[in-house]
């Protein structure tokens, strides 16, 4: 049995912190982008126009059917080729971070769109009709009447999805990005001691995600009281 030496973690804290910053940056961009495009996708899926409804449904179903890592690889290997086709230059066109950002926004929009769609559908149909009767157009009815209530109803589920997203950011390890896990892995390879570093990473994720999930649970209980 190995003697654990936690000094290796302390020595690498600056590197690990840099990794955590990258993880948080990716998380924040993916969260905002995912909710924004997810809302648009959800609205398209609930549209009465076939041309909006069907393609958005196919897109969401296809993205949800493939592994997250597959999506990350798609953009990692393809963006240089696509950008290259336009600019005539090969090689690292936008870099692994931004290709990961695109993959994350796309995948998260698909997941968020399903949550948001359920949220919109939880609003009684009379509400948008009443808004239209008052002379509002589609965007006014959505923006002022339906979406604010829908978002309130789905807040707990969206936060849960955000926690999952935060955990999923560790997947960028597969394209060699130095996120929190990637930084620990690099430090481990240099020092030859991965055990303490991986245990530390697991502990940090556990503490963060567990505390956040407690917050979500409390929120859910409070909202249940309000609704009865």
């Amino acid at each position, binding site marked *: 049995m190995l003697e654990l030496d936690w000094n290796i973690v302390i020595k690498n804290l600056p590197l690990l912190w840099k990794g955590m910053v990258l993880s948080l940056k990716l998380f924040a961009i993916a969260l905002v982008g995912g909710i924004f495009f997810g809302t648009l996708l959800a609205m398209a899926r609930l549209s009465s126009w076939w041309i909006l409804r069907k393609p958005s449904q196919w897109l969401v179903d296809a993205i949800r059917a493939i592994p997250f890592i597959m999506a990350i690889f798609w953009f990692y290997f393809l963006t240089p080729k696509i950008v290259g086709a336009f600019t005539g230059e090969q090689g690292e066109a936008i870099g692994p971070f931004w290709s990961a950002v695109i993959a994350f926004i796309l995948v998260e929009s698909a997941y968020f769109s399903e949550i948001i769609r359920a949220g919109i559908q939880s609003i009684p149909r009379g509400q948008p009709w009443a808004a239209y009767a008052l002379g509002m157009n589609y965007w006014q009815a959505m923006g002022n009447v339906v979406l604010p209530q829908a978002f309130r109803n789905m807040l707990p589920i969206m936060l849960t999805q955000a926690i999952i997203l935060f955990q999923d950011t560790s997947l960028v*390890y597969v394209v060699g990005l130095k996120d929190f896990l990637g930084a620990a892995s690099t430090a481990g390879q240099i020092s030859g001691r991965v055990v303490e570093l991986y245990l530390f990473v697991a502990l940090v994720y556990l503490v963060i995600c567990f505390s956040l999930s407690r917050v979500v649970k409390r929120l859910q209980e409070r909202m249940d009281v309000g609704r009865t």
Partner: protein
Amino acid sequence: MDWLNFAFFLEKAPSGGMTYLGWLASGVLWTLIVSICAWVIAFSLGAVLGVMRTTPIKWLSVPATIYVDIFRNIPLLVQMFLWYFVMPELIPTAMGDWLKQTYPYLLTLPFAQFSLWEFTAAVICLGLYTASRVAEQVRSGIQSLPRGQTNAGLAMGFTLPQVYRHVLLPMAFRLIIPPMTSEFLTIFKNSSTALVIGVLELTAQARQINEYTFQTFPTFIVATAVYIVITMTVIFCMRLLEKRVAVPGYVSQGGH
């Protein structure tokens, strides 16, 4: 259209005595084997944990809750590393050495370029991680049943295990077929994370073929299509199953 040329799949790949198509097929095979083995662990352990969480007995429900909280709040990739790199170092040295040096050679895996230990670590990791998710679904399935059912069962003179066996579980297991389908599909997709510890499943094979041939588009299109086709097939089969076992008037039957 030279970027969309599928002919190279029939060329001989550098190792394994197979064509590139053979590599891809072995990837599909190992994705399925890993997923199914992990699913056996996930479903059986998850069902037990889920039932434990709903019982009024503290020494059953508390450990199950702790299990779920731990396994759901650590990223799967990190758990993969914990099982593969960390666990052998934390058990007694002799056992750890056996695991890393003897165990992998007990059995040579067919069509695989990885060892039994990598496969086992991936299956354990995926199984135990998904068990925590299954446990949550089983718990909410049981809790969605009216409380009167438990009380009626107890009033009829059933013991608590009998109430579970004859009243709650037959209903709950039907209710959770749709969420269990999506959990199986999750394990199927998540099996791609096994590539970080060297298991050459479908995604890893796609990456490897791309590295050797630079045929990015065709390789990833075929691999993606395989994932989508298998997903659709599973959904279709589970809908049939759901209809077959539906209790009239209780679970919504088909139609959507």
